[in-house]
């Protein structure tokens, strides 16, 4: 590879010694075999350890072989490649395991009966019962949170992008960033401290308020991004026709960005739907069906999961119910995500991306 060699035999300059294309697979295979041997000899119980040993052997083996044959630059390139692959596979394992566990355990008791009945007359350890009351609670709490959080979030974003300049918008931008980092339990404690002031008992709407606080900054951020994508020529064209600014925003800017804004709102809904901590503090949980979010304790899906889990000690009917409710919640969140991304893709050309 050096210039001196290049001068003597020009023909070889392009032809760095390269490992054959099958060599990574060979090294991978060798590492796995060796790791299994080490695992058996060292009598390591955990298969996870076997995998880690194989991964380390693979990275080291790749470097040594490549450095011998191809030179250190190529060896560094190969080690980077193998590290990136190892990291990816390493991360895939728990995530796949999570989904697999949820699905395989969740389907045990998940059926129409489970979705349409409450826990009203079912003891904690008895089989039966369902999540109807929790679904009602979740839908009402998340729905109310969206009704509060989404308009405030969108309007704030409009203020920042369309009107914003000066101290107020700088302050709002800064605190939206800060608000994004608020832990959900702190939002719950905030509403709780309000409730303590006026000596209120837990009810669904209190949870909605905390969820709305968590939702607002997310909606502001995503809406802001979408509004910034709207080309300025569109606004100028509309204003030049003598259309007032507020109508320009409502009739030109928002419709152009509506796909992205909807996606952002739905993603934030998916996020708050899985929040447990504020609901635990504010809504309290209730085995009976309570359709009124403004009076009395309610249930909610994530809270139901936690409470069933906490009562189950890791097995039994309550434990199965916790997993079935988890599967329902994940399915709900995933469907929201898929639909939101579908909308984003469907509307994408209009936002100019």
């Amino acid at each position: 590879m050096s210039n001196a060699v290049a001068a003597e035999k020009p023909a070889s300059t392009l032809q760095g010694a390269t490992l054959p294309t099958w060599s990574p697979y060979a090294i991978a295979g060798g590492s796995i075999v060796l790791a299994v041997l080490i695992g058996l000899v060292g009598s390591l119980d955990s298969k996870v350890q076997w995998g880690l040993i194989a991964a380390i052997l693979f990275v080291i083996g790749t470097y040594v072989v490549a450095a011998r044959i191809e030179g250190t630059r190529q060896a560094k390139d190969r080690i980077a490649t193998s590290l990136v692959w190892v990291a990816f596979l390493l991360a895939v394992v728990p995530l796949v395991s999570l989904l697999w566990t949820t699905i395989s355990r969740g389907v045990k008791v998940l059926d129409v009966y489970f979705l349409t009945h409450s826990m009203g007359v079912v003891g904690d350890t008895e089989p039966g019962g369902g999540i109807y009351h929790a679904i009602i609670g979740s839908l009402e709490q998340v729905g109310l949170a969206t009704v509060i959080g989404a308009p405030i979030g969108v309007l704030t974003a409009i203020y920042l992008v369309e009107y914003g300049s000066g101290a107020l918008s700088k302050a709002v931008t800064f605190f939206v960033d800060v608000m994004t980092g608020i832990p959900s339990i702190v939002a719950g404690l905030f509403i709780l401290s309000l409730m303590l002031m006026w000596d209120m008992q837990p009810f669904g709407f209190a949870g909605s308020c905390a969820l709305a606080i968590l939702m607002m900054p997310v909606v502001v951020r995503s809406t802001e991004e979408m509004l910034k994508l709207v080309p300025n020529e569109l606004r100028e064209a509309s204003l030049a026709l003598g259309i007032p600014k507020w109508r320009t925003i409502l009739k030109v800017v928002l419709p152009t960005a509506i796909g992205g804004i909807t996606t952002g709102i739905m993603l934030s809904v998916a996020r708050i739907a899985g929040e447990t901590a504020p609901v635990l503090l504010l809504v309290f949980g209730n085995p009976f069906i309570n359709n009124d979010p403004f009076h009395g304790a309610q249930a909610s899906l994530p809270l139901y999961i936690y409470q069933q889990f906490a009562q189950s000690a890791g097995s039994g009917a309550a434990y199965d119910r916790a997993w079935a409710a988890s599967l329902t919640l994940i399915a709900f969140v995933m469907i929201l995500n898929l639909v939101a991304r579908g909308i984003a893709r469907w509307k994408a050309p209009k936002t100019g991306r």
Partner: protein
Amino acid sequence: MSKRIDVSGLTAYYGSHKAIEDISMTVEPRSVTAFIGPSGCGKSTFLRTLNRMHEVTTGGRVEGKVLLDDEDLYGHGIDPVSVRREIGMVFQRPNPFPTMSIFDNVAAGLRLAGSYKKSELSDVVEKSLKGANLWNEVKDRLNKPGSGLSGGQQQRLCIARAIAVEPKVLLMDEPCSALDPISTLAIEDLIGELKERFTIVIVTHNMQQAARVSDRTAFFNLAAVGQPGRLIEIDDTERIFSNPSVQATEDYISGRFG
């Protein structure tokens, strides 16, 4: 140290789309070869197949042979990284590394290779910057970021960066299209000097430029939109611009289309 390029039967694809078809030509060493032709005819694509940059783009793939002094760039066991060290490239828009100083930009290629001595490095940087006619303008601010230079200076910085690793061939993809006339003139003068040391291939939209700087000119065209681009003819620049052998070339040069 410049080398000859022999292309035979080269076809390049973007995914399933055939961008250029069956191109064969010879690029002589120590000369400037210009590629001209209407937009979308595949001149830039063809240029990028000459140092295996085409395959970097999504779905990019090549059939055929490109011989660099009898060695096929697409042959078995060829390392594209080594190919690109032998065949340097200057892009349409100046692209100095924005996080590096002027000095580091020029030294980047050498540092990558790792085959240099500390003491040699500043000599090579000075030589390359002089070779790119940029030394006098930047010698007092070598540690300033390269992106602080003007567009024309940036492009010469990129040329200095490319020649610092002593490639055999220098490919230039419309190097002046983003520059003003004075910077363009500076680059054209530079090309005239560089051809003493390198084989130069330049893609240009500007026919006067092709006539001014090149020894040989290749005309590319495509039959219709969506069809692959083809090489129509390649000849000495004087002949192409005075008496081309193909009617389409004459039409293009005299401004009757394209």
